[in-house]
């Protein structure tokens, strides 16, 4: 009952966040990063003749609004509804850029300054973060993190599933908490150098908290997951995700997407490995290779397979 209410609340929150970027239509209808040096803007109507670009176009990165990116040229399409801005510095498809057009006249509507934020859609960004964390940059097979737990908990399928689930729970909660801590406490106070110390502390507290709460609230679930909760504190991934989300200046939703993606990737890796190791127990392995050495070789084969994802981008 409570679970259903919780999932409904989560769904409502997600919808609210997706609805947010739908904004009132301005003179610029859409914008996108076309390639490394070009940004295209789609206008609501034809641009009036006589508008010239020098001094009337400004582009900045969202994160650093004080540093203008040099615009080297603006091309107007034949029907005058599309602008292509050429930039001296490279721009990234994943980035967010503020474009300001001055003294423009589009379809008869004049505007002194027209501002537009060029970025990928929220859903597309989140999805690409999830997929990249789960498959393309899989934490176990492409970034080689969390190996202690990976080899420790992948002996049986059942343990693998339990570990994957509790890991996802702790990861998502602590990522949200770390994000808030960093953006509302550490950054305003200029204490960035305390990152490692505070993040480790937060994670340790969170694991302990979950342990205590679960023990009281849901003894059944605790009996299933309790053993793994203690182990999670020594998992590299649980610290790597906060460091990565801080390093990339992710917002809250992007941080949650990264956490969920990494949890899915870790659970997937554990499950795949557990399947292989259950089979290996029945196989005739040379005596010196039994146990960990053969598990390492199998993990190497998986890593080679995951290398195939590396060319992908979203």
């Amino acid at each position, binding site marked *: 009952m409570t679970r259903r209410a919780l999932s409904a609340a989560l769904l409502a929150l997600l919808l609210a966040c997706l609805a947010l970027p739908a904004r009132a239509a301005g003179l610029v209808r859409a914008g996108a990063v076309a390639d490394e040096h070009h940004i295209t803007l789609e206008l609501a109507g034809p641009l009036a003749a006589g508008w010239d670009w020098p001094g009337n176009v400004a582009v900045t990165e969202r994160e650093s609004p004080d540093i203008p990116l040099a615009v080297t040229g603006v091309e107007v399409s034949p029907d005058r509804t599309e602008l292509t801005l050429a930039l001296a510095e490279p721009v990234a498809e994943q980035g967010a850029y503020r474009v300001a057009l001055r003294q423009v006249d589009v379809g008869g509507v004049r505007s002194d300054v027209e501002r537009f934020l060029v970025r990928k859609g929220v859903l597309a960004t989140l999805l690409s973060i999830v997929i990249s964390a789960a498959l393309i940059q899989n934490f176990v*097979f*492409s*970034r*080689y*993190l*969390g*190996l*202690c737990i990976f*080899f420790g908990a992948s002996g049986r399928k059942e343990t693998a599933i339990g570990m994957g689930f509790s890991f996802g729970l702790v990861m998502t909660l602590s990522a949200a908490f770390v994000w808030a801590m960093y953006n509302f406490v550490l950054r305003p106070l200029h204490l960035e*150098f*305390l*990152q*490692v*110390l505070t993040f*480790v*502390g937060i994670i*340790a507290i969170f694991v302990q908290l979950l342990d205590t709460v679960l023990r009281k609230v849901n003894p059944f679930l605790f009996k299933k997951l309790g053993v793994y909760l203690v182990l999670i*504190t*020594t*998992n*590299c991934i*649980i*610290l*790597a995700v906060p*460091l*990565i989300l801080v390093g990339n200046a992710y917002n809250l939703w992007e941080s949650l997407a990264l956490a969920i993606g990494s949890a899915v990737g870790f659970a997937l890796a554990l499950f795949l490995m557990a399947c292989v190791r259950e089979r290996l127990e029945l196989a005739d392995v040379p005596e*010196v*290779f039994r146990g*960990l*050495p*053969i*598990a*390492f*070789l199998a*993990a*190497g084969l998986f*890593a*080679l397979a*995951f*290398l195939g994802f590396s060319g992908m981008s979203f």
Partner: protein
Amino acid sequence: MSTERSYTLLERLGNGLVKENPIFKLALSMCPAVAMTNTVRNGFLLGLAVLFVQVASNVTVSILRRGIHERIRIPAYIIIIATWVSVSDMGLAAYAPGFYKEIALYVKLIVVFAIIISRLEVFASRNPVLPSLYDGLGMGLGFMFGLMLVGCFREFLGAGTLWGFEILPFKPFFFWSLPPAGFFAIGLIMALFIWLERKFNAWRTKR
């Protein structure tokens, strides 16, 4: 003789390097051993950072061992390790910026390396300062030795060089330079260690 076992420097070094080698024997903290060992130099520098953190936190815990309450020892250890990791992180960022860029994430992750906290728990919290220092040296050097051994193996076979110097004029086996080869290298070296140990034990019982 006191009731406590006395440890000498040599015995601790041998223990860390061979008998309880953190990578091949204890199989702890293998993330950097897989990810950062495509060249000897990377392995050496990361090993140096681990050595520093291990020795410093071993000594700190050993000094404070009577003041840390049994119940809160794990958080206390983690805070001590995190402090020394922050020190080495900032030190590396200041003095070796080019190299730091490559391994920044792994240096910060030394905090959660299981080898360090397990040595604090098993050894430093029960022994005086000097043996703890020796133990830290032994374990740190053992870790560094492990990283460099894997690094030698992969760099020589993958690029035909050692520490950036050309040994062979061609690349014998490019596969070993690829990141996933770390798994294979460690698996093979681990099996080699087990094999050598068996041979050694059989030889000793025969005599």
